[in-house]
């Protein structure tokens, strides 16, 4: 099957502010059934907006205007439901519809975070059980569901690590981070007050125990690594590395962004990991929402448990209850208000229950299988960054393109013409012009083959018709976007 795109039927659409005209009514919010309160009777005039204040051109549009506006915008977008989205490191798997229905049940959406515990036992039970499932999958001893995203989870984990050493009376100041790490790792470390010590991965793409040994000291709080790493390879030496770090009293933080490769196959606890964040919006199928919301639960071993953020959920007999700071004197405190991104937890819970142990394992093995199929099928046309079997993603470099005048970005944009979302490009930084492909387990063989065929055609085009690549994409609503102009002449909002 050859996948193609066509011109489609793109309606032009102005900004909603440009559609607006004075006096138009949209959805009437409500009518009041109580006496109108005169604001000036209780609030000083200086605190109030002026009567004619138009809020700087705030929109006034009809309901149908609004419906057409956002419907058209949605048609300019590409999602997992539109097509294949092999965005490496992001795990763009199918987002099951039943999870969406579950999350929209009024018994979940209508809960106020401060309502009496007796009236939200189902929500607390769900969170309690989800913690237990995630503990079982990761092997960790305790989990907090509070962080809102992967990076928020990293920060939470690093705060706990800092608190752990402080509590021991010997604060530590450094975090070792490999050069293949996600940018969030060093950014979170810095935010948590640590100095980042970078180390190079070895020629085989893996972290070498000797390299860790050379920099590990008693001022190093933790080694932060991703496993499988961002090249899609399992860090085989992790146990040895953990031994080295633990011998100096340090901890192992694992960025769990790539947990999709390990579910049911291996547990982080067995590798010596002390702290990990899991990305429910990657591994556990909750949608990415065009940039969140996600959810980044953090798992820890026993010795870090006292430092988990509050509140904690406890089961007392048959009742579930929230435990606060008074009973958790060593807690780092809070990463946010309330308890975390509950509706995302609902989706992840439904996913785990739907799949069960066998289904989760099958998801992981199929993800690995599909990635290796990509790797094997494309390695004649693109240079593999490391020619060894991979886990859940395969990384290629731009080496075979050198001299063609074509860059990795051109390949990415040309893929759009074939109807695919491009892979992650130019990451990890250690691979020149990296093309990082993560097919996930949910794609069919026909889709994988169509993508492979497109990549092969593009490899030929790069030599025979490079202009096709450089001018791509051609069937999208807009052609290549001028990001330089956006930065040089910033327009960050509409103005009347």
């Amino acid at each position, binding site marked *: 099957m050859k996948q193609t795109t066509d011109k489609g039927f793109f309606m032009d659409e102005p900004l909603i502010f440009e559609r607006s005209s004075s006096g138009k009514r949209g959805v009437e919010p409500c009518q009041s059934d109580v006496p109108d309160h005169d604001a000036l009777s209780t609030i000083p005039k200086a605190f109030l907006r002026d009567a004619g204040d138009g809020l700087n051109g705030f929109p006034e549009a009809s309901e149908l205007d609004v419906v057409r506006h956002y419907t058209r915008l949605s048609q300019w977008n590409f999602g997992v439901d539109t097509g294949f989205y092999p965005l490496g490191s992001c795990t763009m798997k199918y987002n099951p519809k039943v999870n969406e229905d579950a999350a929209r049940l009024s018994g979940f959406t209508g809960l106020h975070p401060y309502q009496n515990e007796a009236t939200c036992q189902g929500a607390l039970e769900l969170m309690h059980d989800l913690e237990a499932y995630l503990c079982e999958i990761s092997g960790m001893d305790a989990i907090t569901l509070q962080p809102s995203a992967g990076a928020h989870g990293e920060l939470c984990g690093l705060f706990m690590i800092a608190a752990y050493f402080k509590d021991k009376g010997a604060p530590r100041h450094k975090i070792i981070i490999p050069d293949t790490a996600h940018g969030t790792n060093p950014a979170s470390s810095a935010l948590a007050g640590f100095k980042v010590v970078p180390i190079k991965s070895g020629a085989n793409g893996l972290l070498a125990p000797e390299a860790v040994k050379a920099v590990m000291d008693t001022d190093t709080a933790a080694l932060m690594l991703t496993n499988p790493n961002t090249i899609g390879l399992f860090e085989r030496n992790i146990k040895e590395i953990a031994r080295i770090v633990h011998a100096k009293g340090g901890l192992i933080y694992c960025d769990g962004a790539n947990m999709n490769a390990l579910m049911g196959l291996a547990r982080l606890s067995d590798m010596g990991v002390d702290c990990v964040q899991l990305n429910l919006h990657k591994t556990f199928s909750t949608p990415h929402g065009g940039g969140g919301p996600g959810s980044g639960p953090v798992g820890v071993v026993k010795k870090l448990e006292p430092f988990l953020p509050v509140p904690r959920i406890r089961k007392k007999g048959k009742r579930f209850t929230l435990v606060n700071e008074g009973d958790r004197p060593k807690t780092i405190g809070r990463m946010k208000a309330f308890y975390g991104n509950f509706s995302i937890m609902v989706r992840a819970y439904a996913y785990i229950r739907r799949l069960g142990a066998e289904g989760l394992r099958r998801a992981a093995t199929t993800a690995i299988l599909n990635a290796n199929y990509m790797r094997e099928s494309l390695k004649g046309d693109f240079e593999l960054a490391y020619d060894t079997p991979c886990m859940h993603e395969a990384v290629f470099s731009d080496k075979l393109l050198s001299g063609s005048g074509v860059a990795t970005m051109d390949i990415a944009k040309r893929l759009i013409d074939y109807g695919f979302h491009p892979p992650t490009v130019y990451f990890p930084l250690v691979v020149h012009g990296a093309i990082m492909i993560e097919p996930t387990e949910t794609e069919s063989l026909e889709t994988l083959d169509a993508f492979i065929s497109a990549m092969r055609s593009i490899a030929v085009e790069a030599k025979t018709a490079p202009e096709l690549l450089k001018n791509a994409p051609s069937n999208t609503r807009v052609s290549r976007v001028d990001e330089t102009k956006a*930065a040089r002449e910033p327009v960050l909002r509409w103005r009347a």
Partner: protein
Amino acid sequence: MDFPKDLKYTKEHEWIKVEGNTATIGITDYAQDSLGDVVYVELPQEGQAVTKHEAFGVVESVKAVSDLYSPVSGSVSEVNDAIIDSPEAINEDPYGDAWMIKVDVSNKAELSDLLSAEDYQKFIEEEK
């Protein structure tokens, strides 16, 4: 790529031209080419001290950030404000219009380890 003979260079890809006690500093053609379209530059204030090998500013393209390292110690006597408003000059004329700062050199001995055009060219060949 252009490497004027009358300039000296650093391994951090800055060029420097010394006239009397004043050094003019900018980034090389190679540096602007590797960065891509420059969209933003941050420079020190006049009168501010700079130290050899230490950052005195930042230059950014859409997807990269690079520190600017001073090839020499001293105090800033003049700042090229024009490139703050039109950073594209750094791509167009890195050795001319897009000079960045002028420095009153405090220790001329520091100039001895700077690279000649030839040495710098050799250095970037190896770095590739």
